[in-house]
């Protein structure tokens, strides 16, 4: 043991003399661990939230019975089914306002609640009688309690004046949900004897078929292994994971080059150790221990950084997810022990993988240095050929995936293969470029310049690959975001047709507001809208009622239309379909869609397809009057107004005053638009932040590679100095060389990045969100990125070059003295 410690001390002494190398190694490991575990922390947080949401007393994880029109239905059907042997449990759901805060109210029946309802919150024995028996309980998550600004045990009133049962914290519960006994829910929601859905438990025998008991009044909805939220947010998390993975690999590139160099430099030390009587096994064991210890330290620091990254990004992520999918993620980061262990594990595994070649080399090292190393050209050529072959194979995979893949994962697979292939083939491309340069060069110094660049290639290639990937991702993502941003804003302009939007609290107020508005001269038109929910082919679909008004006909953006589409819409037997839904249901203009409505099936001819960016739900747009005919319960609370611009503030103020409406209920177009754009921007804030992180890590990779390379470059540079090239000149040559390979790499990254953008827009977006955007290229942005990359390379190259320029001649002389 003491012997091992002494050997370890000797090995570690190397780092004391090579602090920069040590820093590089640690930075690589930290960077790899930090972003990866940061992203994992965010994903884990989100998944936990989805799980909780999904499992809330039989969410989508449980099979259930619902009415085809998704309305509530009489509780008598529940009793009828129970008495026919169906193991069902009733749930009533609705929204209520508590202290001005809108929350979901869930009424459950704990005695029949299926025992295998997901990981639903558990009711303790004593709690259960407390929950059922008067006054009952309102189960609530801690964060919701805080949101409502209430204390546990309080019984706050809801907007109708009725009081909730005393609040009782159930820690596992999802936010923004209050759970009460079904009887209490019926009273609070004023839906006596009504039920929203029936959860299906394990049957005791073979109950009679559903239709023989309730006819077609209820239909079965199978459980989803994956929740709606998970499905919707998959792409988002895949996106995060991809970034995490990318920076993990870039980090490992750094580790690989640092470890490679350190081991190379320590080979004589290892020989001496062996000559002085440390056995091969001892030395090798200690080498591995050293690596693990370093990985452990770096892993811990990386985890701490990862935690901060996650904590810093989480508000944006939560905002994105809420804006995009309506998913509620707690803003407070809660991490499980698994996360820490996984982080440390990935750090150690990564370090070992990155150091594998060096370790094997050290382990196989004969105690006597005998064999001459093969010429570098020969080695490099073989390596380049192998790598290029691998690149071709990976490209082939990308093509196959592109052709045959249908899923989102396949889309990301195409992206990953594309980038991996490009990274692998990069050194070969650079080699060819440099070779061409060398062939065409006339002057000896120029020839040396090209030849030496080629020799440097193997040392730099990993860093350049990292730079290529980071740049390509940057180009791809910024192009996608920019495209989306422009499309979105243009679309928003058309979509927000009215000047002022009013949302009444109920139908009565809606009527009152409309009557009041009719009397006003500053209102040019009153456009009533409405929304209803239905299930089409098992999917929740939103029905949007559009008023028949010239403004809509002129401005509402449609992607595809049948002739006279707007005219066809008016009678009520035609609809526009949102792009997402048309893809999901595979419906085109000219097809017919059947919507179950309370009064019977509503057949709708599809006469148009419209973009509906940012809406996770599928949507059908129909005439509002027709919507109300088919869905009489549709709340008529949404009103759009056409008002001259100068009259808007006055009208809004009057509405506020007359109907005590708050800011959420009345808004002008500009406010709505600003809010939408704000949500949109936050959505991509995370992407931008990760983008910057990744580019930063690639910059570090380049810097560290150049720094480590600089030390081994002296023997190559000393002869040039000896034949009369000044140090500043040498430094200038070095700088030019670095910048030229970086430039080549950046230029290669542009087409690759555009390809990535195309993949994102044409494959990933379509699969993930259901919308396809027009593809735009933004040359200015590209130029900017290349400039940034060159600037980063310049910074990275400057330090070693400056050192060279300032190097004492004795150091260069020493090269000759040490030559042996």
């Amino acid at each position, binding site marked *: 043991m003491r012997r091992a410690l002494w050997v370890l001390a000797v090995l570690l002494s190397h780092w004391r003399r090579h602090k920069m190398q040590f820093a590089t190694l640690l930075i690589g490991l930290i960077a790899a661990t930090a972003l990866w575990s940061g992203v994992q922390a965010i994903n884990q947080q989100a998944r936990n939230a989805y799980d909780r949401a999904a499992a809330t007393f039989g969410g989508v994880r449980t099979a259930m019975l619902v009415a085809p029109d998704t309305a509530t239905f009489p509780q008598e059907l529940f009793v009828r089914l*129970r*008495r026919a042997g169906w193991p069902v449990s009733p749930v009533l759901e609705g929204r209520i306002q508590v202290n001005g805060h809108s929350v979901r109210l869930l009424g459950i029946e704990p*005695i*029949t609640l299926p025992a295998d309802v997901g990981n639903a919150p*558990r*009711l303790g*024995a004593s709690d259960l009688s407390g929950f059922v028996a008067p006054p009952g309980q309102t189960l609530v998550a801690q964060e919701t309690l805080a949101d409502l600004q209430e204390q546990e045990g309080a019984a706050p009133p809801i907007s109708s004046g009725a009081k909730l049962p005393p609040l009782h914290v159930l820690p596992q519960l999802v936010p923004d949900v209050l759970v009460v006994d079904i009887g209490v829910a019926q009273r609070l929601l004023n839906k006596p004897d009504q039920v929203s859905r029936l959860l299906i438990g394990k049957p*005791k025998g073979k109950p009679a078929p559903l239709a023989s008991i309730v006819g077609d009044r209820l239909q079965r909805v199978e459980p989803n292994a994956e929740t709606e939220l998970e499905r919707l947010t998959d792409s988002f998390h895949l996106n995060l994971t991809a970034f995490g993975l990318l920076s993990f690999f870039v980090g490992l590139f750094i580790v690989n080059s640092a470890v490679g160099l350190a081991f190379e430099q320590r080979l004589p030390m290892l020989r001496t150790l062996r000559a002085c009587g440390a056995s091969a096994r001892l030395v090798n064991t200690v080498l591995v221990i050293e690596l693990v210890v370093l990985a452990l330290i770096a892993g811990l620091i990386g985890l701490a950084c990862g935690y901060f990254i996650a904590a810093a990004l989480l508000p944006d992520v939560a905002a994105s997810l809420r804006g995009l999918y309506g998913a509620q993620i707690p803003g407070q980061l809660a991490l499980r022990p698994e996360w820490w262990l996984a982080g440390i594990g990935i750090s150690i595994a990564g370090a070992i993988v990155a150091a594998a070649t060096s370790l094997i080399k050290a382990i196989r090292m004969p105690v006597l240095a005998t064999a001459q190393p093969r010429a570098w050209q020969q080695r490099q050529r073989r390596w380049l050929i192998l790598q290029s072959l691998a690149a071709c194979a990976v490209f082939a995979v990308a093509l196959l995936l592109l052709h045959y893949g249908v899923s989102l994962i396949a889309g990301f697979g195409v992206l990953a293969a594309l980038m991996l292939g490009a990274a692998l083939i990069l050194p070969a491309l650079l080699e060819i470029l440099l070779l061409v340069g060398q062939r065409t060069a006339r002057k000896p110094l120029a020839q040396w310049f090209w030849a030496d660049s080629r020799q440097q290639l193997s040392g730099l290639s990993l860093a350049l690959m990292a730079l290529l990937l980071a740049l390509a991702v940057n180009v791809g993502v910024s192009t996608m975001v920019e495209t989306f941003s422009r499309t979105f804003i243009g679309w928003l302009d058309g979509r927000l047709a009215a000047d002022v939007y009013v949302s009444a609290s109920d139908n009565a107020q809606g009527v009152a507001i409309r009557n009041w508005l009719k009397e006003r001269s500053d209102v040019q038109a009153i456009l009533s809208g409405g929304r209803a929910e239905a299930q089409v082919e098992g999917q929740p679909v939103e029905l949007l009622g559009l008023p028949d008004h010239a403004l809509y006909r002129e401005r509402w953006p449609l992607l595809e239309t049948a002739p006279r589409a707007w005219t066809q819409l008016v009678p009520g037997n035609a609809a526009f379909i949102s792009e997402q839904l048309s893809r999901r249901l595979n419906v085109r203009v000219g097809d017919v869609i059947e919507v179950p409505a309370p009064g019977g099936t509503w057949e709708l001819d599809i006469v148009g397809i419209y973009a509906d960016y940012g809406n996770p739900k599928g949507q059908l747009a129909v005439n509002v009057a027709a919507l109300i005919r088919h869905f009489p319960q549709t709340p008529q609370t949404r009103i759009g107004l056409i008002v001259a611009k100068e009259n808007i503030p006055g009208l809004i103020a009057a509405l506020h005053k007359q109907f005590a409406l708050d800011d959420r209920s009345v808004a002008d177009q500009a406010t709505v638009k600003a809010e939408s754009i704000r949500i949109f921007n936050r959505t991509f804030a995370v992407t931008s932040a990760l983008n910057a992180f990744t580019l930063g890590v690639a910059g570090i990779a380049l810097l560290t590679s150049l720094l480590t390379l600089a030390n081994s470059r002296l023997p190559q540079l000393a002869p040039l100095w000896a034949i009369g090239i000044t140090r500043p000149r040498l430094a200038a040559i070095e700088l030019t060389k670095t910048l030229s390979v970086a430039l080549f790499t950046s230029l290669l990254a542009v087409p690759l990045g555009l390809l990535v953008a195309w993949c994102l827009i044409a494959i990933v977006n379509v699969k993930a969100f259901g919308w396809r955007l027009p593809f735009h290229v933004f040359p200015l942005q590209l130029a900017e990125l290349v400039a940034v990359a060159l600037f980063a390379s310049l910074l990275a190259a400057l330090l070693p070059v400056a050192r060279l320029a300032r190097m004492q001649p004795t150091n260069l002389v020493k090269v000759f003295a040490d030559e042996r």
Partner: protein
Amino acid sequence: MSAERISRRMFAGGIAALALARRAGAQGYAGLGETADGFAKVLPGKAFTFPADHGPHPEFRIEWWYLTANLVDANGAACGLQWTLFRQATQPGPQAEGWANQQVWMGHAAVTRADTHRFNEAFSRGGIGQAGVTTKPFAAWIDDWEMKGSERTGDLTLAPVTLKASGTDFSYSLTLEADRPVVLQGDGGYSRKSERGQASYYYSQPFYRARGTLTVDDKPVDVSGQAWMDREWSSQPLDADQTGWDWFSLHLPGDEKLMLYRLRQKDGRANLLGNWITPDGRSAEIKDARNSLTPLATTDIGGRKIPTSWRVNLPARGLAIETTPLNPRSWMGTGFSYWEGPISFAGSHTGIGYLEMTGY
């Protein structure tokens, strides 16, 4: 088993412990020692009226409709079944409407053969119709388990009725006929459970003839035999120091019936009580200090020692028999667990019956 399930069982067990007063007490459930505040009291001298008393008595805390049947299948093999509906009020007072109703219902069903014992349970809240009992026509149900009369059902005989229940791996469907009225147990239907006044109202229909189909593992067989229903309600039937029951319902030769139970006390004493019912339906309490009930052999079920064979001596009636279980492992592993199964007996008399034991 999930904690959630346990908790529900415990909750249900709470109901069961109260509802099972006849069978329970052993677990020392707090409800047993509670006074009957707010609930109606059981007093001697009640005049029973039928069919009204076949229905629920929600002003009392607990009540049950408890049916057991000794059957023989087409091959002559003996089997038995149980169908039970328990009611418990969580709070006294006027009956609230809908979900606010304070009644909770529990059903137990079981099938026993020499080689197997299957059981299941069901829970429901009152007030919404998922479980309940009506009198005209008679119906007692929880989910799809039911005991159901018709226009032909006699007010006094509570027959004919049909009976059905199903579990995951068994089901049965029977028709029950009876040519004699129900029989009052105890002293004219007043069944005293302790010296301190704990008591219940108690009557039985021991003369049912049963016929129907019994299905185990999807294999239906025709069965026929005798059945016995107990009806009992109370607000506080057990004394605090009473730990459990050993309860016999025996079909003696010549259509005589014997209901016999022993209330075990913490101090080791056990009151032996019962009624002897003649073929013409006359019922008399058996009161004799020489009467004895002696366990002969025990069966180990999950660490519990259950006395599954007994010697019964009623010298005044000239009865000296030994009982043997059809299946010694007739354990009801429900939320509130107990032993209940068909038995046969021999000695001075030969016949069949049902045995139920709680508190072990």
